[in-house]
């Protein structure tokens, strides 16, 4: 789960990290008031869950409160199209008005879990403010990687050494140590998945986060109601959110074959075989380890909300999931929500025979399949009709 920059900066303050003064604004009037309260030149920043805002016109300077109001009235209601939003862009509903900063240098800093080493990794670079993936590709030697053993934690010397490698000096080193210590504590205590600061600026004796992207481990939200409360539903794909509410894992895609599969691996493999058979999947959908009739019905409902869907492939290999419960769901869905497109059903594993019998004895119109190849060929043929 991701949050906005203004929310991330409030969390940074909670952890004793100095960030420039700033206020949230939802109208030009609020932006004007914020600018005059802050004083001097301010930066008006669109609050959307996407990177690349600056280049897309979502971050603008304002020298006076009146200018802040005028910038805000242009920005609120615009669709910000960055390289991370897709071409439809993101609607700007909120702005963050922040004091301008004197920028001597721009650095990059991120914390994440390193899967290979099973440590927390601090990634840093002197090349801040740029696309960090390009820096990694063209000048990998400029990417610093500090490994922190989660049992030992971050030591002060590690932070100071990294500061020296970032060519910081004098009082800047102490400022960086305080910053990184706070960030590491925040990262662990709040179960972050990714914490990225780009740019981290050097301003006189201080290092200051100018932007902050925070993502959280959704599996840990049960112990962080205060983070869950920061969720902005307007920023989420409505179908992914609806799916999540029913414990279904969903990703929207561009094809016309709806997929319902149990297990992420089999769901990806099902997308692969549809493509190999010459068609395109409309979605990735993992109904999870405890699929029952209610969830299967909900999954059908979600798939059918997409008008482009011309057929549905149900591919279930039961382990924990019982095929008979899935079959019951397919039958209920067909009866209750009126499925108007061809449905190919492949069921194997736990209670599969019982499930096949139930489907055969029901009066609903489904196309049974044996194995993945058969299932993929049948749905592709049915959709092509």
């Amino acid at each position, binding site marked *: 789960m991701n949050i906005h920059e203004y929310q991330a900066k409030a969390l940074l303050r909670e952890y004793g990290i100095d960030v420039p003064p700033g206020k949230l604004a939802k109208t030009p009037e609020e932006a004007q008031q914020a600018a005059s309260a802050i004083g001097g030149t301010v930066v008006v920043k669109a609050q959307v869950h996407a990177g690349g805002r600056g280049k897309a016109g979502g971050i603008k300077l304002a020298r006076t409160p009146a200018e802040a109001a005028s910038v805000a009235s242009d920005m609120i209601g615009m669709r910000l199209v960055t390289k991370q939003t897709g071409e439809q862009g993101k609607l700007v509903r909120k702005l963050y008005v922040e004091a301008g900063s004197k920028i001597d240098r721009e650095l990059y800093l991120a914390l994440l879990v390193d*899967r*290979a080493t099973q440590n927390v990794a601090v990634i840093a670079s002197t090349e801040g403010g740029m696309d960090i993936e390009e820096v990694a590709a063209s000048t990998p030697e400029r990417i610093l990687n500090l490994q922190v053993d989660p049992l030992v934690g971050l030591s002060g010397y590690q932070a100071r050494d990294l500061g020296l490698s970032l060519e910081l000096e004098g009082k800047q080193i102490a400022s960086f140590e305080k910053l990184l210590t706070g960030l590491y504590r925040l990262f662990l205590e709040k179960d972050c998945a*990714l914490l990225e600061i780009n740019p981290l600026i050097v301003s006189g004796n201080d290092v200051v986060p100018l932007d902050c992207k925070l993502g959280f481990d959704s599996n840990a939200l049960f112990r962080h109601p205060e983070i869950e409360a920061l969720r902005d539903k307007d920023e989420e794909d409505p179908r992914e959110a609806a799916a999540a509410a029913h414990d279904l894992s969903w990703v929207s895609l561009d094809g016309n074959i709806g997929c319902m599969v149990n297990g992420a691996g089999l769901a990806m493999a099902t997308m692969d075989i549809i493509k190999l058979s010459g068609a395109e999947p409309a979605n990735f959908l993992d109904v999870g380890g405890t699929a029952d009739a209610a969830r299967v019905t909900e999954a059908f409902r979600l798939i059918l909300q997409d008008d482009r869907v011309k057929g549905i492939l149900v591919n279930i290999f039961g382990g924990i999931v019982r095929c008979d419960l899935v079959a019951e769901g397919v039958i209920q869905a067909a009866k209750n929500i009126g499925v108007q497109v061809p449905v190919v059903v492949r069921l194997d594993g736990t209670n599969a025979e019982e499930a096949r019998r139930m489907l055969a004895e029901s009066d609903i119109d489904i196309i049974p399949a044996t194995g993945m190849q058969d299932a993929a060929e049948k749905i592709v043929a049915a959709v092509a009709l």
Partner: protein
Amino acid sequence: MTPWISKQTKLLVQGFGKQGQLHARISREYGTQVVGAVRPGHGGKEVEGVLCFENVKSAVAETGANATVIFVPAPGAADAILEAAASEIPLVVCITEGIPVRDMLRVRAALRGSSTRLVGPNCPGLMCPSAQVRIGIAPPSIFSAGPVGVVSRSGTLTYEAVHQLSQLGVGQSTCVGIGGDPIPGTQFIDVLEFFESDPATQAVVMIGEIGGTAEEEAAEFVASHMSIPVAAFIGGRTAPVGKRMGHAGAIISGGKGTAQEKVAALEKAGIAVSDSPATIGETLLRAAPGLKR
């Protein structure tokens, strides 16, 4: 290397709710010795024919359990793993899905240097058809005894591969689901090393998916350490790029993690890669033509 599971496996169940009871029963019916269950507040009672204990320590002392399977819900699962490791159970298999990454970082750090092997979390567990040992949640009907070792990051895709093998008349020696979480207890390389040393295993099916670099590391291991043939499948060739990966994640893997790169690394290591998930069994037969079925 001694087998991870055998006829001598004595299995404990941690988390004896609905799922724990169901799968304990299926494992017992398959022929596995299920010697006890840990269910705080129910010590001394018998549920579904299985004796319950208050904690792992007393269960191990009473039953001599040498393996445990964990169904404890996510908030308490890391604690259950640490409890099993504290009693020095050699094999701990965690089925639980959705454990916070931070909890697993702690568990992995705590297990460094420990004699306990953790498989999972978020995995289907292990199967050894010849010894009739089932640890986890796999459907027994699709398995048959034979010479092929199977290792996989995905549960249901493992069943798919095993089903194909059995239908082709090729049985399995040991199947290990290592799970799809970012911080697994056991990696591909650990299982491949075991298969290479296992006299019952003559060929290997390996099933990976996009994300991380575990398949690339496994490919290097196969090229330099393995003599028996390996076939593979990578799920997610058509998955959209970058859908769940943060920027910094892409840096640390040095641009690795796509299915295409994984397939290239595997093929370079001499591994036969199946393009379609429907041809995993056939690909193994092509890679190991002399296989005794």
